[in-house]
């Protein structure tokens, strides 16, 4: 059950492999944040899992079955995905967009059933877009729009939810609004794989962190084990301090603009991350 990526490699162009021998297992009900620099292969890996791309080598199982063996609609009933941004070409209403999440559940010419209506209603309430139902999807703000597409994915009622940097273009308030909805789904048992750039929000949202570098998953484990200053430096090539909020106990990542400019001299932050590392070691 869940997602199992086994030694998967993929190249858009024959020479350069964007995903290289990646392995990742996500158990049912687990939530994993996928982090890594631009070009490390996060989006491509998500696309491979969602079936939009076919791996050149390796295999991907969803609910213990190779994804290549699923029919398109059967697969969409198990796995839903929200993209980084959406460009809609016509004036569909918010309700119409969310209703499209029900497409995998009913035949081409079938009418909306009571089940469908219920699922649509529930999804819109969960994603807090029920008040927007009649608005055109194209006149919403970025934050509202992303929540509509989250609602569409929720209406699919799939056990697995993939999110490809869904908050990249949102301001902080909308990032938090979006992720708190995701967090609630996680608590209620949805399996979630979330690619995200903000390391602090990654740590706060998911149970586990997988770090990608040059197309491979190089670190995978508990948030405090993976999100260390050494790992971040090795993978992102930046200097950060990792601390812990004294009241909530949540980890945070503090990037250093000064250090990024001065390259080699890390001394001032060095002690900060040593402290963080020790703390991480002490209370896992």
């Amino acid at each position: 059950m869940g997602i199992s990526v086994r030694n998967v490699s993929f190249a858009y162009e024959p020479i350069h492999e964007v995903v290289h021998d990646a392995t990742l297992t996500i158990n049912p009900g687990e939530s994993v944040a996928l982090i890594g620099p631009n070009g490390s292969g996060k989006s491509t890996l998500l696309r491979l899992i969602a079936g939009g791309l076919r791996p050149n080598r390796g295999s991907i199982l969803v609910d213990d079955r190779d994804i290549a063996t699923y029919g398109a609609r059967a697969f969409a009933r198990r796995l839903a995905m929200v993209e980084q941004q959406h460009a809609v070409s016509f004036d569909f209403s918010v309700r119409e967009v969310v209703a499209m999440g029900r497409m995998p559940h009913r035949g081409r010419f079938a009418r909306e059933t009571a089940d469908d209506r219920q699922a649509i209603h529930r999804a819109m309430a969960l994603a807090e877009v029920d008040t927007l139902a009649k608005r055109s999807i194209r006149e919403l703000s970025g934050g509202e729009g992303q929540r509509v597409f989250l609602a569409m994915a929720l209406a699919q009622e799939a056990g697995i939810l993939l999110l490809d940097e869904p908050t990249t273009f949102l301001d902080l308030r909308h990032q938090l609004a979006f992720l708190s909805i995701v967090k609630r789904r996680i608590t209620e048992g949805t399996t979630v794989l979330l690619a995200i750039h903000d390391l602090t929000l990654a740590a706060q949202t998911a149970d586990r962190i997988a770090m990608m570098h040059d197309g491979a998953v190089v670190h995978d484990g508990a948030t405090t084990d993976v999100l260390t200053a050494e790992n971040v430096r090795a993978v992102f090539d930046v200097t950060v301090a990792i601390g812990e909020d004294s009241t909530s106990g949540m980890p945070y990542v503090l990037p250093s603009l000064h250090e990024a400019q001065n390259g080699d001299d890390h001394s001032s932050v060095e002690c900060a991350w040593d402290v963080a590392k020790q703390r991480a070691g002490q209370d896992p």
Partner: protein
Amino acid sequence: MRSKTRRATHWILGGLAVVLVASMGAGIVIGPVVIPLRPIVTTLFGGPGEGLTAVQEVILWQIRAPRVVLALLVGAGLAVSGAAMQGLFRNPLASPYILGVASGASTGAALVILFASSFAFLLPVGAFVGAAAAVGIVYGLAQSRNRKLSIFTLILAGVAVGSLFSAITSFLLFLSSGGEKLSEVLFWIMGGLGRADWEAIAVLLPIVAACVAIVFFFARDLNALALGEETAQHVGVRPENLYRWLLVVTTLLTAASVAMAGTIGFIGLVIPHIMRLSLGPDHRRLLPASAMAGGCFLIWSDVVARSAFAPAELPVGVITAFLGAPFFLYLLKTKGAQL
């Protein structure tokens, strides 16, 4: 305007159907020779009074009726093809002619008129072959190494190949050194329903019916595609499938319509827009509405084309543009943001 209730939608669709049937009746009755209703009713259903004269019968059943049916088929075909192309390319500027169908057909028709004018039956064949050749070249160019179709390349190739075929047509016209054949080609390009007969309809009807049915079959998938290829895929639609089927089907639909009636402009672009503005973008309603509205529009345009300067006949493409363009501009001005 956006999310019409189901009931309002049904009223509009039902209203369109009624108007369509009425238009067909009107298209048969109205013309340079006005045929009174009573004798028609008498001939059809029996009853008191005189029936139709023999001349009137010929005008009705051999001239007007096939013409009205052809207008319905071509109008519906072009409008459905335009709606599908706009959905497929996710672009409101797309029309049935975007892939070079019209230019290819014109070249084919010009070749037949200029060099094989004694074989009139070849005209639709030539136009169809020309259209198929143009689109075939466009598809060939847009096919990339990994056999995936690039929509962007497709549109650019369509523009380029269209220009090339237009140039060939112009060159052919230059060679023809004026005269009757030149004006015949120009008339063909502007479009007209003057060649309508029951044989043409026997050929066109099955093609239009089958193609329109296939496009309807993919209506829901076109809705999903409007949210983006990736998103469509996440709800179980395979965009490659959609492209493969609909590009072929809409091309066939357009080429067959153009082969019978010339390159009638504006219907494929404007009718889907008008229907989208009044019914919303859901293709399950948009496509049948476009089919009916396209049919109505061309029937009435043809009525004007053959009556306005009778006994001379205007090319119907002139009328569709004259009626369509101002109305479209009005929509653009008042509701432009929603297009």
